[in-house]
């Protein structure tokens, strides 16, 4: 379980970006964090991951393994001379305990088999996103955190990735927290949405969010 209590956060002691955040994520949940640009969605997951320290409040993470899939286009140097296999091998070798999940298995799962020796710069946006998901799955995570997984990738890859995440959540009971700008995907996939606005957050069910904000906007493709 992940429990955030009365969390406040500000950058460099300026005005509070996150105010009194309270969120409980239970085993098997799929929570999409939504909100406008600069509302603090990515900051919240950076706090959960321990990359930032809250001004006050607590974050209690009891999941034995947590993995993170970064926002592809923010993180990646596409000219970096590294192959798919090298990305996964490096991750595997730096883990403190040996991993039971095998590299060929995760590659097959994400339809990346045959791409082992391909440089990351030669992968499409969707394949690259799948590679980062494959890397995260190597650690057999009980909690998977993603930052805008559909950012900058084609529609077909988005459908494949969200289908995969749904299976991971519904069948393998992996808890998922996903920062999402794609509202259609958020509503379609999540068990609950966490909406951050002006620093405050509140949880709502997808149906409730559709009724309040989206009305007839939801497509059927996700």
């Amino acid at each position, binding site marked *: 379980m992940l429990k955030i209590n009365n969390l406040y956060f500000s950058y460099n002691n300026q005005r509070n970006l996150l105010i009194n955040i309270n969120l409980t994520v239970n085993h098997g949940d799929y929570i999409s964090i939504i909100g406008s640009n600069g509302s603090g969605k990515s900051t919240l997951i950076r706090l959960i*991951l321990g*990359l930032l320290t809250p001004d006050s409040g607590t974050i209690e993470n009891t999941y034995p393994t947590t993995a993170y899939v970064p926002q592809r286009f923010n993180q990646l140097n596409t000219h970096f001379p590294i192959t798919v296999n*090298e990305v996964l091998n*490096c991750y595997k070798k*730096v*883990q403190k305990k040996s991993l039971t999940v095998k590299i060929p298995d995760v590659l097959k799962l994400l339809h990346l088999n045959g791409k082992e*020796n391909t440089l990351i710069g030669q992968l499409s946006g969707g394949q690259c996103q799948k590679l980062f998901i494959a*890397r995260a799955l190597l650690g057999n995570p009980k909690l998977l955190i993603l930052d805008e997984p559909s950012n900058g990738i084609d529609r077909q890859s988005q459908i494949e990735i969200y289908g995969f995440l749904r299976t991971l959540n519904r069948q393998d009971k992996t808890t998922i927290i996903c920062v999402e700008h794609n509202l259609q995907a958020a509503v379609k996939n999540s068990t609950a949405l966490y909406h951050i606005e002006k620093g405050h957050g509140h949880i709502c069910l997808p149906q409730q969010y559709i009724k309040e904000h989206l009305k007839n906007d939801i497509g059927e493709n996700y």
Partner: protein
Amino acid sequence: MLTYSFMQNAFLISIFIAVLCPVIGIFLVLRRYSMIGDTLSHASLAGIALGMLFQENPVLSAFLAVSVFSVIIEWLRKHFRTYAELILVIILSLSIGIAITLLSSGLVHANIDSLMFGSILTVTRADFYWVLFFSAISLFLVYRFYSALVFIVFDEEGATIAGLDVKLINYLFAILVAATISISIRIVGILVISALIALPIAAALQLEMSFKKTLCYGILFSYIDIFSGIIISYWVNAAPGGIIALNSVLLLLCVLFYKYKIKAKLLQ
């Protein structure tokens, strides 16, 4: 040529420098920190001047000074995230200030030319043993932390989340950079050390291969640059540093020509 003991020393030292420079260089280049080699080689001048003042071996004193400066650079990286190149200017000013003050005040007497441009004649057997010592430790540490270093350079945030002590490994790497520079300056010289760190890797990157293959080609290019540089400098009686730098640029141009003219034509 090989009957002279100074040439033997130069070749023996070069065997290690040619491996170490690209091994460290690939991580620096991919971090977009190529110019750190230039800054730290100038910082080594301060170390050498201090070593002469206290009558210590210049390789050792350079290593100690460059280690301190590279740890300061790593520490300052947190405070100058947006203007990273400013850190190099700060360290350059401090170290050059110390070196010029000591050398111009008459407290120490050194052959500045051989330090600036590199020299085969001044390399001693003691230097060789120091080089051997630092190279063995540095190469072992890179081998031991290879996956962690690649992971950090590729995705520093991901490495932190994966549980790596990124800060510790970054400081350790800073000391490895110091060791590489302090053992290379005798042959290559202060002014052109960054060429040996960056250019073989710059040439290897053009071949667009995996990390391991890029590193292997970087080492191969580095061997070609250094050994041909030493041999030519012996025959034309010029400082090896300059010839090695010219060779590095020439090799890079050859690789670019191969990539854009020959390889492109073959693929058509």
